[in-house]
């Protein structure tokens, strides 16, 4: 899958939750969203990317993805 596309989507999700919640709650909400709506191969790829540094992921998105894995 196109990783840059996945990164963009994960950042958008994190951005929504981060705007209305404390950091920890936003991370948990983002993780839950990814678990509920992303097919496993999408999750696997974004987790691999985050574990490799995940440079383009926002802070909340990265933490949420790591929590997924």
């Amino acid at each position, binding site marked *: 899958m196109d990783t840059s596309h996945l990164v963009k989507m994960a950042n958008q999700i994190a951005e929504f939750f981060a705007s209305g919640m404390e950091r920890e709650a936003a991370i948990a909400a983002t993780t839950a969203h990814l678990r509920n709506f992303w097919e496993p*191969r999408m999750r696997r790829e974004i987790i691999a990317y985050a574990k490799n540094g995940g440079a383009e992921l926002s802070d909340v998105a990265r933490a949420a993805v790591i929590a997924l894995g």
Partner: protein
Amino acid sequence: MQSIDDKDLGTPAAKSDQQVTLEIDGREVTVPAGTSIMRAAALADLQIPRLCATESLEPFGSCRLCIVQIEGRNGFPASCTTPVAAGIKVRTRGERIEGLRRNVMELYMSDHPLDPFECKAGGKCELHQMAAAVGLERMRYPSGQNHLDLPVDDTNPYFSFDPARCILCSRCVRACDEVQGTFALTIDGRGFASLMSPGQRQQYADSECVSCGACVQACPTDALMEKTVLERGMAERAVITTCGYCGVGCSFKAELRGDKVVRMVPNRNGLPNHGHSCVKGRFAWGYATHPDRVLKPMIRKRISDPWTEVSWQEAINYAAAEFKRVQNQYGRGAVGGITSSRCTNEEAYLVQKLVRAAFGNNNVDTCARVCHSPTGYGLKTAFGTPAGTQDFDSVNQSDVIVVIGANPTEGHPVFASIMKRRIREGARLIVIDPRAIELVRMPHVAADYHLQLQPGTNVAVLNAMAHVIVTEGLANERFVAERCESAEYAAWKKFIVDARNSPEAVERATGVPAAIIRGAARLYARGPNSAIYYGLGVTEHSQGSTAVLAMANLAMVTGNLGRPGVGVNPLRGQNNVQGANDVGSFPHELTGYRHVSDPKLRAEFEAVWGVKLDPEPGLRIPNMFDAALDGSFRGLYIEGEDVAQSDPNTHHVAAALEAMEIVVVHDIFLNETAKYAHVFLPGSSFLEKNGTFTNAERRISRVRKVMEPLAGYEDWQVTCLLSNALGYPMEYSHPSEIMDEIARLTPTFAGVSYEKLDRLGSVQWPCNDEAPAGTTVMHVGQFVRGKGRMLVTEYVPTDERTSPRYPLLLTTGRILTQYNVGTQTRRTRNVLWHLEDRLEIHPHDAEQRGIRDGDWIELTSRAGSTVLRALVTERVAPGVVYTTFHHPESGANVVTTENSDWATNCPEYKVTAVQVMPTRRIPERPTAEQIIRAAEQQIGK
């Protein structure tokens, strides 16, 4: 002419709860106060002759055929305009009355073709029926001056007007005014010179007429007649079914002669439409028997090969073998399916069942992905149910109506007519749209506020409205305290009162003057009953789900939920987009919007389906395309969708489809997607099958077969064949059994059955033990999820921004006579009204670029470019351009990008940065005359 089996009681029902008893011809009759004497008599089976009265229109009192006598009162009052009164004694018969009626009738008949056998309405012409009813046997007046030689106006593609047969009863004029709200017709001139005509003695084709057909239905004679009736003769029987076009879901009587459809007449007892319809549903059904229909299954190994016609069994076996091969080679998750919003609930249910049970994964999605998936996410998150909160009739009790990102007069015309009537009665209107849609100003309707925002700024505007409401003390704190999560409300309140959300702060980004946002917010908050109606202009954005949540916030903070007249209501694009979602078309949800990860839920399905289910969510449509390009997804079964044309960034979709090894297209036409298919399975139109559709108000209505499927099978049967060939048996003998299975597995559908639908006509879900007759208004007393959730909806500008290279914003929409990508409507006479898609551009932007109206222009975005003709108009604001997407050659989706809604991946169709330049690259497209000629040939004119 009304439907052949309609019983016409003469005047509309009165709304009063109070009952009145009177005597008619010696019979005691009790009816609601306000009922006309004519209707009271008809209810007691006493028919009073009439011509200008009909049940769908307010009484007018012009023909004087319906006179009666009332004991103790003078004269002969018209029974259609005289209400009942307690204790009165009415006489509908008697020598005087009958003599007077005959005189009236004689005058009518003296200027009308006499021979009932010549009448095209057969035995259904009310004039001839009334002549017989009043006992008119001979004419005393010599034939003198008359209108019998006036020319027929047949300029409308679907009906003609013969003035010689017009009796000037005004029923058509009133239908156009009262029912449709277009005000296209008049009785022009006085006395003998009077004539019914569109506009100022124009022809239909040149007038304001939108071809809804209400006048044709109201006409008591054969003056206004469907051309199909003139060609094929009057119908002999009628079958009640549901329109296959938009999410209004109008109920129709399909009238047949033998086994041929003669005409479609909107059903007077249909609850979504109350006997009204638009041009598509009433007239544009000819595509069902169009010669382009492909009726034989076809296969080919490679998409570069020509198609080979094969038997059903061979096609099905080939498809099944290929799906199995791909799964063996690339894994269980390498295939999936797409359900259709145009097919029935039962058919969508079976396709998702095939994916989950026969393919063994959850890679199923539906076209709602690209339209209303943010509605699903937003309304479910806020209220607990991903559906509109009201029924359509609710708008009759609204005081303030907000229309945002929707264009009801074009997209949902019948609902627009109800809405316009309410506005004429005094409801106020707020339109939030980048374009001056028709509702902003039209005869007898004008928006109090038009918030002409920049595309992509809905959330900023909605937040600013909420800011005004909270900071000006207009919030309904009691409602919020009782009904909503308090901690979330506190956080939201803190966010919304921040100065960055004030109308003044967002004025620049949105382009809407702060004073207008303030005015609109105050009006909405004041209500007392304020309702929001919205469309794809809200959802098809990177912040589509956020905007749905923001609307929910507005409704909650003002307490506009849980009763008639209020609510948050999506106007659904396709006939069954609600239903397809309800029955489990989303990859993460089983029927009734329940997540696949729930082991208890899966166990219930596993027990009935007899297979183990995958607990992980599947791929959504855009993810399927991405996965196809990386090689992990290689097979797709597509029922009734044209993803190659309707999905964004056509080049990307085409590349993804080309990369797949087995694409099965199951459709009525060889659509654009079929270019990439290996198997084509002929589909059946809505006229050829049994099933149900669920409209935008959650209303489940029956679809009834009126003709045999042309290719031999209804779509649900084909899915069963495919599933059986895949080794997962599906045995149903009728769609009612499929609905029974849905009801068994879905709490919100538990009370739904074909028997109940036949008995009640339709039901709105939830329909179960608590609500056996269905649920009209949702969230009464408390939200489905318990407390309402008010989430912070920060405005985040889309990444799709203008730049010096792409300085304009493109947004898209549709027009009345065409439907989506036009597969159906382009194969009807509707094509005569919309020969091509045009690009609307503001005069200022056009002048800067040297573009004149009608010039060919090149429209370029970061994703691609296409060539269209320009339409220079002030309907769009400077900086914004707009087009429809009904014709494949205009390729609007060649230029749309892959940006999508953060929560659902719904594509951002409504904002694309573009440049528009005059071009010499004139495409080889036919001239208007050639298009008309080709269209006429196609429709066999």
